């Protein structure tokens, strides 16, 4: 990702993510389902407006890609913010990522669901 000429608005992203380019967890996918943890805890005063907007938007279940679309931020950047909020206990990951290919049980259920549409 850091080949010559790669300019992903470096300064802006650097500031937004506190200087990191990669999330603290690599299990986040565009389809990973997330929801704000509703335990009344407030974000610390140091949290940025994007973290606040993210939690606000995620009061109900949304995928990472949906969050990025609503916030008008790249998925790669939102993944970093999401990781921090999950680490801090403010945001919960609801879905387990599927690696490689989904298993037959899941495929059968999706097929049934599609036929029921």
């Amino acid at each position, binding site marked *: 990702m850091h080949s010559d000429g790669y*300019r992903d608005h470096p300064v802006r992203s650097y500031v937004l993510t506190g200087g990191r380019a990669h999330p603290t967890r690599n299990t986040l*996918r565009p389809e990973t*389902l997330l929801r704000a943890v509703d335990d009344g805890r407030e974000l610390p005063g140091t949290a940025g407006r994007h973290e606040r907007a993210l939690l606000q*938007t995620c009061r109900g279940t949304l995928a990472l890609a949906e969050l990025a*679309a609503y916030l008008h931020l790249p*998925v790669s950047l939102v993944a970093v913010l999401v990781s921090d909020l999950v680490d801090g206990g403010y945001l919960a990951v609801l879905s387990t990522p599927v690696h*490689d290919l989904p298993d037959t049980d899941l495929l059968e*259920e*999706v097929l049934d669901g599609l036929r029921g549409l």
Partner: protein
Amino acid sequence: MGSAASEPRTAQHLAPTVDRSVKVLVVGAFGVGKTTLIRAVSEIPMLSTEESITTASVGVDPRRDEKRTTTVAMDFGRVTVGSDTALYLFGTPGQRRFWDLWSGLADGAVGALVMVDTRDLAQSFEVLDQLEEHTRLPVAVVVNEFPDSPRHALDEVRAALDLPKGTPVVSGDVRGRPRAVEALTTLVAHALELRRAEGVAA
């Protein structure tokens, strides 16, 4: 309708019972009907998200962009299947460099719906090659019937694209929801078949 990506929108949350997600990639050249299919199936207005990429690697004429940085958009939609599963449809151009922009986009996908325009079969070769070369994704081919596209028999399309045996080919106007859902159903059924065959072989 339009994607209206710049307008503020109220988030449309999933039902509280949904705690699982799967995805299908809708792959094809620009203008082949990816967003049409996604829009026909999606239960939410289509969404779009952007990543930055250097123009040099996009293949855009660099003379037209002095900053040499541009953004690539991915359109996507969602449909809830059953009570607990969200199916995401991610539309992406055929070249692997685009999938790599969205980390893990191809990883864990049910499969890829490859949209084909019979007026330009050649551009579908690259898409199919890339999928075969870089992923193990089950593939189903959707021949999008544009009003002015020549009607080929599906067998002809299959032969022209030199598809691996067993690859399903469906055709129709994907603006209609039933056709679009049928294309998805075909892909998932094919993926299930392959998975079962794998289980037997193992």
